[in-house]
């Protein structure tokens, strides 16, 4: 069966510090991968998606970047965090046939 892991679960970082959130998927190959952000009281915002190694598409301009160094690994990064980067970040992979999304447990980022 497929599983998805993301870490860390919680993170408190000062403004201007770097960020690295990691996500790995097991039990499937060549998945579509996604990073979403959920700000307090808001819905989900798609940040990045990837159809393959090294292939990243960004949905919104921002202070963040993503990379996919391996087929089942997806990394969300920032060189210098802003207060507005605070939120709940969710990694997901999708079934290519149905579009069904499978989510990780999320990473709570607080920028102070």
């Amino acid at each position, binding site marked *: 069966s497929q599983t998805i892991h993301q870490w860390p679960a919680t993170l408190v970082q000062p403004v201007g510090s770097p960020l690295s959130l990691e996500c790995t998927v097991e039990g499937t190959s060549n998945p*579509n991968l996604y990073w979403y952000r959920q700000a307090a009281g*808001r*819905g*989900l915002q*798609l940040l990045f*998606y990837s*159809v393959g190694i090294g292939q990243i*598409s960004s949905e919104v301009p921002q202070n963040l970047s993503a990379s996919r160094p391996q087929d089942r690994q997806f990394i969300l990064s920032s060189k210098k965090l802003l207060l507005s980067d605070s939120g*709940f970040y*969710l990694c*997901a992979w*999708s079934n*290519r*046939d*149905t*579009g*069904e*999304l*499978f*989510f*990780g*447990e*999320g990473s*709570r980022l607080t920028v102070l």
Partner: protein
Amino acid sequence: AQSVTQLDSHVSVSEGTPVLLRCNYSSSYSPSLFWYVQHPNKGLQLLLKYTSAATLVKGINGFEAEFKKSETSFHLTKPSAHMSDAAEYFCVVTRGGFKTIFGAGTRLFVKA
């Protein structure tokens, strides 16, 4: 173009009474529709999905939804609410891959 509207930002019910969470969609083609549930500080979990098979879809935890093309609706129901159903619920429309649109979410409160 696709869109999805969750008609209620908050719904409050008493334990043991029925639950109705409303969702309307707009799509220029036959969509796939999903309902996800999110408990606090957790990832999203799939409740049920419609992918052009039976219009009445049964999901986990006693939830079901009916796809009504004439009304462009996909409302989520449950005959009897349980305290553990208190969470946020998202209606999602997708054409597959990256064309996935999330509703703004409906927070369900269950009173004892």
